[in-house]
């Protein structure tokens, strides 16, 4: 029950905030943060139990027929992520309240933010593939509305669309991957799938499943070549960037890879695709970050770098790598959310985020400055901070990855060098140096704007000094779930003088050098072209893809839905003829022997009359002749009914045919003749289609007639017409007794048609129509080519 509450209280809050924010006013952030804080506390009470090895599963039937349960599963890994989401969420709620104070859509903003948090918690706790997928999509949707929060700006709208399309496309791939997983394992329950061991790895679908799941994870977690949406998503208000696009939502892809790691990881495909793309993303984005001067731009690309790093570690898959992955998730969330909030606070204070224009803010914003320094040091991996522990583990992992030790270590080293430089840019540039015109009048930020970064700084510092606090309660259960076996990891600040420590030193030295040489590096031609190709270049590629898609849709609409009835008819009929023709070609045609020997002479006469009458309507111009010709067909058919034991049909047909002729004569008297000047080419084409359809119907009917006739329904009525319905006319008993409701429906349809006709006849002529009448009314119009 508690779990359900933990997931759904966020949704309830989302429903409430639009109405209550007017009342909560300036304190909104503090008041609403009670919900994420409460969930965090509740989840924290589960930590001890989970650390002792217990897992909880709750399930409620949702769509029982499809085995879809609303089920949740608390184990080390899901609890690890859930705590992160609600914990950071609490700080973000407080921060957002201060950041957007007085915004006229504050209630709406908190509604979206709560919806996102609930969806994210639901995602990590979900234990059913469909539940998982639905929450996964909900986070994409929440991201969409939050990126587009400033919906009056075109850039925001575009960024929101882009993020939505990219992540939803990946989500669809993920769904297919899930369905294949269900095919292989026979269950939708994630905790059961995790027990299946090598079942998926040994199945023929393995490659497809891995590719599809990776497509979902890579789009969500902004891996190469999909990462272009994430920098654009910085259009969102800063609390959103800090929360969704750095600390939590983009980690949903990482969570997907981690959740299914025990059953998917291992084979070369996984190692090289996940590890390789992760390393590539990490390296590219770390250096792309140095191309930007906007703090949020730098933060966006270093976030992609962190996601690439996490992906790479999941690809390597060794125990050290996975441990490094989990630790770095925390490290990154703490410093990156902190730095985002710092950037937002600066923006809030001086309305500028360009690091080349900022400076000397330390005096005006002391608390923010302190938090930024700790976060920056953690980001750079300086000893005694949590980031150092993380970076040591990363080097440990790459150094012990035998197949490609040098490659991955070099990539990690180069990426971390750029990261150190970025940390310098984000902390030293804005706060140190002299104040300038812009920063001289910075006002002291509100407590809500620095409390979040401050708490995170305490965590970065505290866990840097005492990382072993995480060992038993958090890390061990999460790592065990990630590896699918029991482990007892430990963290330490000092591993002795080893290769990793040496690499750390090299990293810092090179990073400082890179920071010093930032301006020349940023403006150098190779780095410029790197940004042009892989930064804005990928973004433009997205535009081209979308434009191409729209052009394709337009072209297809122009062909298929051009408004010409005959074009629609031709499309539908030709498709049918081709499909039926293919059927006959594939299965062969079995028809009766075409023999007309026992056709009586009057039957020939009748057939000629029917077809002849109908043919007359093709070329007769005179309207009376036309109607007469049509009448011959109808009366001929009535005679056929009469000859073959259907007196009721014949009678009705005679009546209806008479009425039809009368109606036509009445109406046609008021209408002019239209001389259609269709070209011979059009006539031939229409004629060919007509003959093809007619031929198809004849062939089908001959094939049907050749089959034995099973008239179970007809015999039923014959047998029971008298005993059940007390009627001697079987056709009548069917209509008014056995199928009386259908007949009632039919009468209603006729009634409605009658009303329609009456209304149409009584309708007044519209003045506009009369005025324009002369311009449209041309008796002969050249057949427009269609």
């Amino acid at each position: 029950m508690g779990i359900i509450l933990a997931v759904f209280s966020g949704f309830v809050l989302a429903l409430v905030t639009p109405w209550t924010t007017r009342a909560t006013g300036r304190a909104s952030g503090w008041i609403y943060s009670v919900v994420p804080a409460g969930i965090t506390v509740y989840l924290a009470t589960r930590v001890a139990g989970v650390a002792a090895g217990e897992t909880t599963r709750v399930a409620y039937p949702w769509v029982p027929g499809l085995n879809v349960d609303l089920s949740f599963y608390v184990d080390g890994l899901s609890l690890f992520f859930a705590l992160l989401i609600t914990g950071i969420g609490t700080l973000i709620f407080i921060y957002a309240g201060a950041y957007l104070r007085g915004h006229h859509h504050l209630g709406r903003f908190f509604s979206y933010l709560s919806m996102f948090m609930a969806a994210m918690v639901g995602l990590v706790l979900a234990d059913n593939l469909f539940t998982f997928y639905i929450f996964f999509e909900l986070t994409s949707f929440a991201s969409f509305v939050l990126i587009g929060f400033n919906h009056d700006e075109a850039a925001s709208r575009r960024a929101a669309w882009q993020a939505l399309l990219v992540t939803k496309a990946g989500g669809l791939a993920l769904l297919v991957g899930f369905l294949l997983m269900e095919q292989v394992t026979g269950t939708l329950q994630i905790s059961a799938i995790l027990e299946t061991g090598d079942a998926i790895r040994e199945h023929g679908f393995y490659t497809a499943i891995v590719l599809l799941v990776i497509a979902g994870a890579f789009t969500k977690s902004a891996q190469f070549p999909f990462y272009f949406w994430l920098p654009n998503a910085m259009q969102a208000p800063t609390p959103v960037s800090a929360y969704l696009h750095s600390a939590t939502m983009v980690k949903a892809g990482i969570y997907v890879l981690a959740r299914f790691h025990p059953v998917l990881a291992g084979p070369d495909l996984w190692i090289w695709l996940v590890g390789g793309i992760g390393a590539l993303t990490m390296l590219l984005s770390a250096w792309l970050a140095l191309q930007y001067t906007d703090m949020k731009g730098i933060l966006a690309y270093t976030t992609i770098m962190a996601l690439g790093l996490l992906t790479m570690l999941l690809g390597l898959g060794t125990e050290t790598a996975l441990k490094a992955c989990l630790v770095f998730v925390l490290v990154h969330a703490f410093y990156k959310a902190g730095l985002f909030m710092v950037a937002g606070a600066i923006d809030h204070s001086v309305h500028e985020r360009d690091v080349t224009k900022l400076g000397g803010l330390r005096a005006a914003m002391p608390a923010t400055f302190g938090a930024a320094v700790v976060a920056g040091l953690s980001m750079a991996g300086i000893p005694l901070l949590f980031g150092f522990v993380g970076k040591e583990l990363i080097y440990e992992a790459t150094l012990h990855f035998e197949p490609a030790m040098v490659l991955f270590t070099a990539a990690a080293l180069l990426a971390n060098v750029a990261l150190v430089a970025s940390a310098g840019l984000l902390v030293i540039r804005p706060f140190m140096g002299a104040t300038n015109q812009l920063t001289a009048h910075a006002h002291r930020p509100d407590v809500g704007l620095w409390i979040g970064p401050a708490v995170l700084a305490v965590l970065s510092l505290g866990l840097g000094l005492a990382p072993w606090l995480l060992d038993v309660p958090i890390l061990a259960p999460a790592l065990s779930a990630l590896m699918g076996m029991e482990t007892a990891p430990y963290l330490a600040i000092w591993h002795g003088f080893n290769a990793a420590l040496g690499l750390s030193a090299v990293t810092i030295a090179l990073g400082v050098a890179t920071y010093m040489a930032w301006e020349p590096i940023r403006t150098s031609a190779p780095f410029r072209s790197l940004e042009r190709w892989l930064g804005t270049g990928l973004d433009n590629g997205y535009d081209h893809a979308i434009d191409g898609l729209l052009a394709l849709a337009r072209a297809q609409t122009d062909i298929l839905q051009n408004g010409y009835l005959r074009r629609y008819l031709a499309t539908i009929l030709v498709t049918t003829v081709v499909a039926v023709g293919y059927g006959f070609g594939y299965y062969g045609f079995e028809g009766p022997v075409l023999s007309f020997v026992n056709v009586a002479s009057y039957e020939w006469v009748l057939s000629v009359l029917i077809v002849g009458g109908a043919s007359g309507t093709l070329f007769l111009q005179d309207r009376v002749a036309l109607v007469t010709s049509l009448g011959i067909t109808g009366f001929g058919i009535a005679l056929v009914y009469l000859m073959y034991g259907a007196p009721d049909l014949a009678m009705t047909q005679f009546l209806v045919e008479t009425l039809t002729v009368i109606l036509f004569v009445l109406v046609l008297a008021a209408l002019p003749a239209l001389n259609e000047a269709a070209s011979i080419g059009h006539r031939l084409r229409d004629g060919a289609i007509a003959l093809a359809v007619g031929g198809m119907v004849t062939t089908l009917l001959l094939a049907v007639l050749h089959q034995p006739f099973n008239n179970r329904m007809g015999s039923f009525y014959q047998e029971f017409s008298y005993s059940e319905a007390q009627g001697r006319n079987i056709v009548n008993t069917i209509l008014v007794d056995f199928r009386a409701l259908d007949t009632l429906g039919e009468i209603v349809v006729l009634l409605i048609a009658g009303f329609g006709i009456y209304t149409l006849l009584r309708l007044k002529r519209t003045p506009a129509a009369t005025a324009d009448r002369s311009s449209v009314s041309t008796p002969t119009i050249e057949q427009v080519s269609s």
Partner: protein
Amino acid sequence: METLLAFVIGALVAISVYLLQRRDLVRMVIGIVILSNAVNLLLFTAGRLTRAEAALISVGATLPPEGSANPLSQALILTAIVIGFGLLAFSLVLVYRTYRSLGTLDAQALMEWEFKE
């Protein structure tokens, strides 16, 4: 006769398809009439023909004579004829109304009218 009717029906369908592709709305409506006649005949033939007896039970009997006509297809067709007439009447009045309001019976001109609006 069933084989012959198959060809008759095919011919009717071909004629109606040709008419449905014309620009003259009146001919289009005629195409609808012929098509519904053709389909009725198709149902009738597919329900098998018998030259013998109608589907009637004579006084004193409780079952129809052996080999009497199939009542099911007849019931279906009876419904279809009536509904077909409803459709025809409505379409014809609609065509008439269109002409009174817009002054044309040309599907092409109507399209241009629609785009001009």
